[in-house]
């Protein structure tokens, strides 16, 4: 799995380079510009890494976002370092224009799927198990979240980026919900994954 981890590092670096390269050369409209991500994100926590870097596209008049994250938990914060990727879809339901420079998106709903790297985090039940021995897979979990975002035009004049946003999201995942069901003594705060981050828009 070491190779896979390296692959993710390189993939992420590549995405960031392409993004930076593109924002710097925004005035030249290229043939493949539509391929370039619409934003990059840096997120703290939220269940997908201590720090996660993401790239993504926005669709349907900026109402739907699809983001690919690479998340890392360094050794020291956990007893072993953890690498993972996640794919996240967000529906931005409400958009409030506060002024020319600020937009508030207070009601974003999201769904994500999260894959942790490592042979112990299998996705398909290894062959030595009897069929359907375990119903879940430790390597692939799905979850949901709600969040809010404040979009600004900071840096818009000084850099080729169109703006910066700060966002927060609060969520949980299927395995936590399955543990909470039928257990009133487990506090709801124990199954919450809170996170926040910044987004830089193209």
């Amino acid at each position, binding site marked *: 799995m070491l190779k896979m981890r390296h692959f993710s590092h390189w993939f992420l670096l590549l995405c960031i380079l392409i993004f930076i390269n593109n924002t710097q050369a925004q005035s030249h409209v290229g043939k493949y510009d539509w391929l370039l991500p619409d934003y990059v994100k840096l997120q*703290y*926590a*939220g*269940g*997908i*890494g*201590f720090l996660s870097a993401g790239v993504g596209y926005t669709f349907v008049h900026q109402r739907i976002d699809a983001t690919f994250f690479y*998340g890392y*938990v360094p050794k020291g*914060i*956990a*007893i*072993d370092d*953890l690498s*993972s990727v996640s794919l996240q879809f967000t529906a931005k339901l409400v958009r409030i224009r*506060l*002024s020319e*420079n*600020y937009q*508030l998106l207070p009601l974003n709903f999201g769904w994500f799927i999260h894959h*942790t790297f*490592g042979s*112990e*985090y299998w996705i398909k039940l*290894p062959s*030595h*198990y*009897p069929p359907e*021995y*375990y119903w*879940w897979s*430790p390597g692939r*979990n799905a979850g949901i979240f709600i969040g809010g975002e*404040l979009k*600004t035009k900071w840096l818009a004049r000084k850099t080729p980026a169109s703006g910066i946003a*700060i966002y*927060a999201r*609060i969520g949980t*995942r299927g*395995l*936590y919900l*399955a*543990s909470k*069901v*039928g*257990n*009133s*003594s*487990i506090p709801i*705060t*124990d199954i*919450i*994954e*809170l*996170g*926040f981050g910044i987004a830089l828009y193209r």
Partner: protein
Amino acid sequence: MGTTFKIILLFSTMFLISCEGLFDYSPYQIDFDSENKGVNATNLDRLLKTNQSDTITIAFTGDTHNDFDELGCFVDKVNTFPNIDFVIHIGDIADFGLPKQYLWGNGYLLNLEVPYLVLIGNHDLVGNGLEAYKEMFGDVDFSFVYQDIKFVFLNTNSLEFAYNGNVPNLEWLSQQLLPSEDFSRAVVVFHMPPGIGFDSELELGFYQTLSAHNNVIMAVHGHQHHHEVYYPTADSIPFVNVYGVEHRMMTLVKIYQDKIDVENEAF
């Protein structure tokens, strides 16, 4: 506009600060505080310092899976009994092997007034569960002597180690059961009994090792969630199958002189 923005920023900051502890980095993050580390060693220390009685009473539960509320009820009930020496949780404290489930499970057991020991089950080993178990409870195979009786805790979850031939570790078990001055009898405790998930190539050796020195007075296991006492070996070592916690029944084992009593108590 500046004011509105500052207010939003202020409230967001206050919100985020007040939510410290809700930030989650990964379902597999192992970052336990001191009361959730080395738990079996701490409890053994406590147990071996207590005044040992002639009759040993042990309360067994196990197979918590996702029935955490019931584990809480078990703890409350055990705390009402005056004569329990210690508690054994016979494995599967973390249904998905998640560090968070380890924390939940141990969170209830920490409220026990008597010492307790937690054995490893197959569910506890999924994902990075082995690391979580070692960090929270310690070695997967361990033993101690209490009142002239050696208690041997054995990892029998062969399936989780892809039937590698070393689980259960029969060489270690055999060493533990070698007669010595500090004990005259032994009790062997494990999660998974011979059957599906237990290495079939080690099954015969397992029974032979238990019978080798004629000093094992009882074997106790979980995994099957129901209760029964049965005798799979020719020399009649009783095997006690412990109820899963969802039945809200605990198994009480009393050992005195040369007798063993097995009772079940509702909670």
